[in-house]
């Protein structure tokens, strides 16, 4: 192992960095030192501040307090270009590609090789992109447009982008979430080679085994604060989870016994071409069914299709025995379906509108008479649900954007629970919310199931799925790879199915 000598200053470091967005403290006094030739893992739950930290290193955010050090000297990045020029390459969790440009152009935007008179050398761009793809061992054509690439391919283009210049610091935010085993192995090979040549690597992954396979040090964040920064040697996965979560897992997952009733939601051979294929499952009243799988496996897309946001190309959906027409969310709502979407800021809430208005977006039918809204009915509906879900707010008229992530999520839940659904689909219900609220959301889901609601819970948080679900469905590349009972579902069995290894065993 190449361990940097202690006296050489870190290539890139943060000292006592804090960053707030409005009332949300994303980072509180965090320090991080990235040494040449060292792969450093950043661990923490969703919402712990990892993405903010990365964006600070990348020059996107400037710290409110604290400094960024480059080779031991304080430095101020005025934008992503400054960080890039300092040799910081970043692979973001969400691919940031230009759909209208070719894959090769995507990689070299702003840095194209040039020939005489400053003209872009298109041939060299293509050639360099082809070389990168060869090194990564992926079958991508430099000339194809980025539009229409799968998530995995988009992620590979991002990786190629980061590798395309001699980075002194390589930051990777969940680069492997959508990749297959062989693609991950190849990526790790390239990263190790870079590290041996003296690059510093910052690696984020929710797959803890990858952290142990690739990294020498690990820094753990919780709620924006630094919990520990230590060598990976001698740590166990359990140690790391305890640092990330900060409390016993049992109280985080209250699971009540519920009486399982008749089939509430029945999905048969549902197909949307190129997105998911031949998906069939049932969810019964009183049951919580977990839908697990890797990012990009098609889980959210199935939920969107069932609810009618996207059309499906083939198959059937029935709610309480009655067929649902494709592509009609309002009919799905009328049939008793509710969907709490994955991205609450973009899809779940109207951020500038008040708490009351947001909750009542689903309530026109129940709060209006002859097409005229009744303020009193609206108000009592909103108060009722805000109080029931213990939303912490100053006034109901406040914009939801002033609430913390956890309370925003409660407002989305309130909006849908107020429709008295028979089937509740929740997509990543606890992503990016603090541990305390997380437990409240879990208690709520459990209570709903006990009351006879059928709950379909999409989650990338494996412990959450294992603890809360009566049954676990696992998707792999657009297909249902496994249907596991609560007893069969373990971290190993779910991950095996999610990564496509379970197929032969099942």
């Amino acid at each position, binding site marked *: 192992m190449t361990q940097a000598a202690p006296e050489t200053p870190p290539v890139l470091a943060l000292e006592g960095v804090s960053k707030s967005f409005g009332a949300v403290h994303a980072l509180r006094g965090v320090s991080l030192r990235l040494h040449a030739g060292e792969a450093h893992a950043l661990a923490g739950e969703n919402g712990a501040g990892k993405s903010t930290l990365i964006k600070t290193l990348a020059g996107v955010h400037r710290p409110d307090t604290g400094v960024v050090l480059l080779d031991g000297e304080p430095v101020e990045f005025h934008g992503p270009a400054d960080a890039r020029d300092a040799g910081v390459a970043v692979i973001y969790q969400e691919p*940031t590609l230009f759909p209208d440009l070719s894959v090769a152009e995507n990689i070299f935007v702003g840095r194209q090789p040039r020939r005489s008179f400053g003209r872009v050398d298109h041939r060299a761009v293509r050639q360099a992109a082809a070389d990168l793809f060869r090194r990564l061992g992926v079958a991508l054509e430099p000339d194809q447009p980025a539009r*229409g690439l799968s998530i995995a391919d988009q992620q590979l283009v991002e990786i190629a982008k980061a590798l395309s210049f001699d980075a002194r610091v390589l930051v990777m935010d969940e680069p492997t979430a959508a990749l297959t085993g062989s693609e991950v192995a190849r990526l790790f090979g390239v990263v190790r080679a870079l590290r041996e040549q003296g690059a510093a690597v910052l690696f984020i992954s929710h797959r803890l085994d990858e952290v142990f396979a690739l990294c020498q040090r690990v820094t753990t964040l919780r709620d924006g604060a630094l919990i520990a920064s230590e060598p990976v040697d001698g740590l166990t996965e359990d140690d790391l989870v305890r640092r990330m979560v900060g409390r016993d897992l049992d109280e985080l997952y209250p699971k009540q016994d519920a009486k399982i009733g008749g089939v509430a939601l029945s999905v048969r051979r549902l197909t949307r071409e190129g997105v998911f294929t031949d998906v069939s499952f049932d969810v019964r009243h009183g049951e919580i069914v977990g839908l697990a799988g890797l990012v990009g496996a098609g889980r959210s897309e199935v939920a969107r299709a069932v609810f009618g946001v996207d059309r499906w190309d083939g198959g059937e959906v029935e709610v309480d025995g009655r067929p649902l027409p494709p592509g009609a969310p309002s009919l799905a709502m009328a049939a008793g379906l509710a969907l709490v979407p994955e991205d609450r800021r973009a899809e779940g809430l109207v951020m500038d509108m008040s708490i009351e208005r947001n909750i009542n977006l689903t309530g026109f039918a129940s709060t209006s008479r002859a097409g005229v809204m009744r303020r009193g009915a609206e108000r009592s509906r909103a108060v009722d649900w805000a109080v029931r879900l213990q939303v912490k707010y100053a006034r109901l008229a406040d914009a939801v954007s002033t609430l913390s992530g956890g309370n925003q999520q409660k407002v989305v839940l309130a909006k849908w629970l107020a429709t008295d659904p028979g089937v509740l689909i929740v997509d990543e219900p606890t992503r990016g919310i603090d541990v305390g609220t997380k437990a409240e959301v879990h208690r709520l889901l459990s209570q709903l199931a006990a009351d006879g609601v059928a709950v379909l819970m999409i989650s990338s948080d494996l412990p959450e799925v294992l603890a809360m679900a009566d049954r676990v469905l696992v998707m792999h590349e657009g297909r249902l790879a496994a249907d596991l009972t609560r007893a069969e579902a373990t971290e190993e069995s779910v991950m095996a199915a999610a990564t496509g290894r379970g197929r032969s065993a099942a």
Partner: protein
Amino acid sequence: MTVTTDQEHRARPAGGSGSRKLLDTVLKVRELAIGAVLVVMLLATQLDNSDFLSQQGIKDLLLNATILVLVAVGQAMVVITRNVDLSVGSTLGISAFAAGDYLSGGGNPLVAVVLAVLLGAALGAVNGLLVSLGRVPALVVTLGTLYIIRGLDSVWVGSRQITASQLPSGFAGFGHDGLSVIPYLALLTAAVLVCVAYYLRAYRGGRDLYALGSNPEAARLAGVPVRRRILTAYVVCGALAGLAGALYLARFGNVDSGTGTGYELTVVSAVVVGGVAFTGGSGTVYGAALGALLLTSINSVLPSIGVSSVWVQAIDGFLLLLAIAVDRVVALRVADLLRKRAAETRSARHA
């Protein structure tokens, strides 16, 4: 890049080449289609009225198109960045009057053209600064500057008028004459068109315009100097509107405070008909130029086949809707095909 991990591993022939060709074809066809419509329309008119494509007829067609093409080229640059400049009509008007005012006082024609270009560039810079710094929608900002510039123009010009008799004869000649059937104005416009097209294709600054129109947030993260690029696009757009003003003066010799009113909408139509997507990131200035040529040709075609020119606007509008409908249908079909192909490639790869 210096690391090499595994040389002998060769990328497999990609399944993506099919979709690339498909998209390439669609993009090329987009411009070919307008060209074809234009040619068919002109030939059909010629069959109906054999005087239509006479020497003078061709010359008129080109002369009529030049000014719109110039402004459309500038506008296309702005639209590619997912913005718009509605003030081009006002800019054209005030630049034309400035050049005319200077010339009627006995000025040098070349200086007059430079003056118009500089004035246009300055107004473009104002637009660019407001849009890029203010982070306000370009539609609203440039609607504001449209009225402000028009207002200043009215105050300054009042009821005055520049007429051809006040201009040096050489300048008016420049507006009418040419090399055989090709007017000087058309040559100048073609030169500008080729330069801008080359810049957009072959320079980082040009490629950045496509990038930031395609995905502004990704452009920011990739270190593209977003503000500077948007400012550049607006300055060029303004400068070309200014140049178009000078050419307008040379061609028509007649400028008052109302010159160029409503021109912005014709320009935007030409750009969109020419296949420059209003959502940014795609299209070429050649397409925009063809769109402008098509729209101005209709103006000449209708009278010569005996259709009343009152139909011109309705037909322009119809073309605009048709162009957008075609774009939408093609985009949906391409997205569908790419989606299915990606799925096939993926399943083939993991089979």
